Every structure is written in C-alpha cells, then in structure tokens.
C-alpha cells in the first residue's frame, strides 16, 4: 500500500518517464532474448542434450540486463512521441517473436 502512495507522491514528469522505461523493457528484453537465441542457436537440435551449460538461464539473465539498460535509456529521454507508437511496436514484436520462435526453435 505504501508503495502506491509513494508513487503518487512523484511528479508527473518522473512518473511518465518510469512508465516509458517499463514499456522499453517490455519491448527490448524479448528482442534481446531472440537475438541471442538466433545467434547462438545450434543447427543440430540433438546437440542440446550434450551442452554442459544451460543456455536458457544465460539468455534470460542477459536479456533482463539488456531490458534494464533499455529502460534506463528510455528514462533519460524526454520525448513522449515514441510511446504513442510503442503499442503497435509491441504487437509487431509479439508477432515477429512468435513466428521466429515457431520457425526457428
């Protein structure tokens, strides 16, 4: 409850920046994940059983880091223009992500 009260005490400009940072995280973290997957993807699926490390954990951790970095970058941007198109960008990311995850698992 105190968390929401503290949020309300922030000025509108700062709240808008944090909100845009959240959207940047939502868009960039999955893209970073997919890029890593496609770059380090093995052509032999059966080789996955013999990999000693767990690539999924690393992909997730690195993608969260990239998403966080994008959020920090978005926080520093003052423009509000880009957030209006972010919804459509999210739909594009979701569609492209789903297709690539399906075609190149």
């Amino acid at each position, binding site marked *: 409850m105190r968390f*929401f009260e503290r*949020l309300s005490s*922030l000025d*509108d400009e700062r*709240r*808008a920046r*944090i*909100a*845009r*940072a*959240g*959207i*940047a*995280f*939502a*868009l960039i*973290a*999955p893209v970073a*994940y*997919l890029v890593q*997957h496609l770059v380090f993807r093995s052509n032999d*699926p*059966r080789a*996955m*059983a013999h990999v000693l490390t*767990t690539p*999924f*954990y690393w*992909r*997730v951790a690195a*993608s969260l880091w990239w*998403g966080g970095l994008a*959020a920090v970058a978005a926080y520093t941007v003052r423009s*509000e223009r880009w*957030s*209006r198109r*972010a*919804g*459509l960008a*999210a*739909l594009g*990311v*979701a569609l492209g*992500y*789903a297709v690539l*995850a*399906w075609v190149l*698992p």
Partner: protein
Amino acid sequence: VTDLLRVFQAMHGYLAALAIVGLIHPAILLRRGLPLSRGGRWALSLSTLVTVITFASGIAIYGSYRELVKPSLLASELAVAMLFETKEHLAFCVVSFAVGAWVAAVVAPRSAVDLRKTAALIFAAAAVLGLVTLALGTYVAAVKDFGPK
C-alpha cells in the same frame, strides 16, 4: 523425487492458466486508458505477480527437466522437443511483456492515457502469447513428463 517433480510441473501448468486469465483482465481494464483505481492497481499487480511466479516455477524445474526428460524427448520425439523450445521462448516474452506493462500502467500519471492504452496492448499480446505457451506446454507434457512412459 519424480512424483514431486510431476506435482510441481502440474502446479506450474495450473499457475500458467491462472496467469493467462490474469493477463486478459488488465488488457480490458486499461483499453480506454482511464486512470486506475486502488483496486485496479492491486488487480494488475496480482496478475503480474502470478505471471512472474509461473515463470519462476518453470525456471525452478527446468534443471531437472533438462536432465531427466529432455534427452529422451529429443531422442524419441524431436518435433515435440522443438515445440518445448518454442514454448520456452514464448514464456520469456510473456513475462517481459507483463512486467514492463505493469510498470507502465501502475506508474503512469493520471493524464497519460496513451501510456495506459499502450500497456493494454502489451498485456493483450502477453495474454495471447501466454495462451499459445500454455497449449504447447500442455501438449508436450502430455507426450512426455517426469513420469515413467
């Protein structure tokens, strides 16, 4: 141990179903971009929390799954094993979308209608991808899970 893992896997699936229902609600609630009430904020927070817990429970059993199930699945049912890979990728997208959209929706100032509408679209996309993830996960688990088959 495998019985315990099967129970945990089933719980992961039930949580996923709950998370999808939870993700549809914010998409509807935020579609007009109106400011959230205190109850709305709590509802969004719980939806996102369930999604994160679902993903975390998947991460928790992933090590055992990779050790006990994946090798035989790859050997006997390659196409199904690839569907599991797709599910794994989609799950990360769902949790990223949910967390990012939650931040945007809860923190956005009262005047930021566009930000809340954007969050609604992201929640909707997360719900759709979550539904695909759940369907794939259920199918893969039906073919092979921690139990003896």
